[in-house]
């Protein structure tokens, strides 16, 4: 099996992206150690640090696992909800 990056793996999944409706809002000014935790834990690798060490986040590849809700609510995560009904990731295998 070829070695794949997390982005290549996510690209295989089916998403109904709810454009303009971010179901997770993050705070890039939260404490760096908290951000670091989410960089490690998010299974989709959506919490990233850019070249200047600042948090970037893209809700579009979210697997809706709830990990950042458990770890980050009130800190890095300003608000968390599921995408609207029928939107978001759709598992064809599960």
């Amino acid at each position, binding site marked *: 099996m070829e070695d794949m990056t997390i982005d290549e793996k996510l690209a295989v999944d089916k998403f109904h992206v709810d454009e303009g409706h971010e179901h997770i809002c993050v705070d890039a000014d939260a404490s760096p150690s908290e951000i670091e935790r989410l960089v490690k834990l998010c299974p989709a690798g959506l919490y990233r640090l850019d070249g200047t060490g600042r948090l970037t986040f893209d809700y579009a590849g979210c697997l809706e696992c709830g990990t950042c809700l458990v770890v980050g609510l009130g800190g890095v995560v300003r608000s968390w909800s599921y995408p609207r009904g029928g939107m978001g990731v*759709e598992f064809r295998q599960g």
Partner: protein
Amino acid sequence: MGQEGKSEVSEDTERFDAIIVGAGLAGCTAAYLLAEKGLEVVVIERGSFAGSKNMTGGRLYGHSLEKVIPGFAERAPVERRVSKERISLLTEDSGFTIDFTSESLKDPSRASYTVLRSKFDSWYAEQAESNGAMFIYDICVDDLIVREGKVCGVIAGEDEMEADVVLLADGAVSLLAQRIGMRPAPTPQATAVGAKEVISLDERTVTDRFGLASGEGCAWMFDGYVTDGHIGGGFLYTNEDSVSLGVVTTIGDVDHSATTVPEMLRRLEGHPLVAPLLEGGKVIEYTGRLILEGGFDALPKLLDDGVLLLGDSAGFGINVGYAVRGMDLAIESGRLAAETVCDAKRAGDFSAASLASYRSRLEGSFILKDMRFYRKFPSFMEGTRNMFTSYPEMVEEIMMGMFTVDGSDPVRLKTKVKGAIGKVGLWNLAMDVKHGMGAL
């Protein structure tokens, strides 16, 4: 896109006997049985079809579904019946494997099957539907209607729907149970995150590479290197023409090392024991999910006026670090919830006092018996990091000693074993064995 074909909830509030939130295994079981008894039941699911939001590791112990649909495995889209169990201790470049095969693993009363939830849950929802249950997809329940302390229905956007009883089968995150104060927000120490990928291989290749008979499958757990010292482990389940490969790690353990969750999965894929088995395979899906692992001592309030918690939303599950079990518990809780609701319907009373028989049913079932049995396991795991670090290294050293012939001076096996154990410390080993046995 998902919004097309969105089923509208009727304006003039319809009334049902029961509303079930979530078309997972717990929700589908309750719907199947309540509809069979002639109750008006509706399942509301936020995904576009049952299973579209659900993932699991891969192994369903069949005993509880067998009680709902006897002989289900003949008809349901199960992948393979597990006939081979493997457990491996990994270091970066070695693997020590226990391989167990037995004809008695195939006995229907104790058989287990690998499953893929997208297919499996869709099938289960169809069975419930043919019993008369109604399913509404593409609707996310935002809140519950609560009057004078009693749950009376659900709210989704502008729409409301009422029922005598609401069954929350909305999974591990269960925002709804938290919202009405039945469950506290999960803590990082009592939760784990799982990531999994499905790798396609043809049916024959899976059968041959894992040394299986046709239709039979392998369940494989990995401990050690993959999680980089974190509590957790890896798993592999063979499907009909694919393999489910994943990792689980405790969230509260995140500061332990710099390895990310996606990186843990890459460690497993690339490990010399695993990589050759995946040769030529293609990743066809990547998923992630939360696991509650607080166990018996973290159980929430399981029922209240007009409401019951089922499956993962009730925290029903057993996690022994490397292996997770929740599906057979989710199904059994769905069955017990249905029995409870039928009794309450007969009595015309859906108060907490009337629904309290759910608790006693759970107490009498394997759910709370097994969870009580494993109650010390979460703290045992926290107490012994050696399981994930030094033990795999110790075993590697002993095995290398046994299997290496390179012309150097011979050393007695006893001395080799002593040397390897010495690094962990005999006292530590003895204490871990003692506590480990005590936790079981």
